[in-house]
């Protein structure tokens, strides 16, 4: 039996839904029932943060992968991965606001302004939100060529959250360094494109 490309894409999307949504649902089930260790708040913040980083790396791996293996249909699952990246990041921010700071808005704003690692994390989140909103087909069509320019910000987002992760830890820097390396490799695949972007920026 041969499965069509349409079916392949459908299967892949199903796989993405299962492996991105179920862990999140299970995480909150455990957290609400106090089954997530002594401090469920810290756990949900870390899980969603790392999850968002993983998903962004995966999203940005799609196009090099599709090119290298000549599987153009892979690009059809990229938006879904990107949207899950956004949802994980959204939960990451909401966890911090709702469960850690417990809606102390003054403290929230103070922390965003005063702590450089939170500031750049927030910039990355706002950019990511813009990408998520403009991923709607109707908006994408209206934007024309500027859509691609906007979505090139994904490289900046990746860089920002790599720094955000590195700055957020006390002393255990090996994991953040590893993520930094992965991010660098992802960007290396876009060497030419990034070079052009820089040329345009500074010329």
């Amino acid at each position, binding site marked *: 039996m041969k499965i069509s490309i349409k079916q392949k894409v459908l299967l892949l999307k199903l796989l993405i839904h299962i492996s991105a949504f179920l862990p999140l649902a299970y995480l909150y089930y455990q957290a609400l029932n106090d089954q997530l260790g002594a*401090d469920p708040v810290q756990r949900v913040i870390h899980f969603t943060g790392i999850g968002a980083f993983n998903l962004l790396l995966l999203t940005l791996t799609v196009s090099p992968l599709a090119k290298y293996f000549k599987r153009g249909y892979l690009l059809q699952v990229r938006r879904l991965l990107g949207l899950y990246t956004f949802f994980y990041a959204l939960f990451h921010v909401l966890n911090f606001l709702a469960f850690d700071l417990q809606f102390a808005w003054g403290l929230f704003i103070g922390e965003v302004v005063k702590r450089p690692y939170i500031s750049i994390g927030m910039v990355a989140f706002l950019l990511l939100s813009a990408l998520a909103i403009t991923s709607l087909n109707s908006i994408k069509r209206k934007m024309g060529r500027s859509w691609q320019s906007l979505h090139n910000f994904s490289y900046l987002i990746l860089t920002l959250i790599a720094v955000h992760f590195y700055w957020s830890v*006390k002393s255990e820097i090996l994991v953040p360094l590893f993520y930094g390396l992965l991010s660098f490799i992802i960007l290396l695949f876009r060497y030419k494109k990034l070079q052009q972007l820089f040329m345009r920026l500074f010329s």
Partner: protein
Amino acid sequence: LEPLTYQADNNNAKLILTPETKVTTHNNFYEFGAQKHQPAELSQGFQVNPWQLTISGECDKPITLDYDDLTTMFTLEERIYRLRCVEAWSMVVPWIGFSLADLLRKVSPNSNAKYVRFESLHDPEQMPGQQNRRLGGGINYPYVEGLRLDEAMNPLTLMSVGLYGKTLPPQNGAPIRLVVPWKYGFKSIKSIVSIKLVSQPPKTTWQQLAPQEYGFYANVNPEHDHPRWSQASERRITTGGLFSRNRIETLPFNGYGEQVAHLYKGMNLRKNY
């Protein structure tokens, strides 16, 4: 874990205790892994008996205590203390132990003794964080902490050998650890093998690693933020899941100002953080 005989703490019975399972599964003890759940998992084979704790340095009668001495040398008492971590979470723990002052008086500090230097066990075979940089969080071992002599002699300063009625679990710093309730948790060094009276302030572990972030004193101070955390408030870890409303104001000296504020009279606490 063995049951201990001790005098109960009736003064602080009003405080709502952090459940025992949370006290023993949420630990910063990088020798057994830098993630909070790791020490409880990676320390279970830890040998605490035999143990030797040496008290030496600028004193007339240095001594070495064996494992049994730790629980039999002094009358043990329960002390229910708030524990405030620099990461802005806190617990209430029923410690069991004796005053450090009682121990120090036994060795008769001489006039050169101005500071006390504490050192944790260095045993990479038993402590995976000391042989694996990823587990150990990149800090230099052995872990070292220090107090000024008058801080060490303050009646609140406790040498703890147990919690919740039993000897300490390994992840909480068995067989003996320091508890300084008005300072951030990292001052309360675990699994101590050496206490030394010295004339100069010892170079403490976190101070060496990031001097802008961690000072020698590390007194709980809501007015002085850590570069990465506001210290104005904290989350008290008790029962309850994600929705427990547990954020409370942080008090100067973690609420122990009456007993310790006089130690720092005339000092600029923003500079001496």
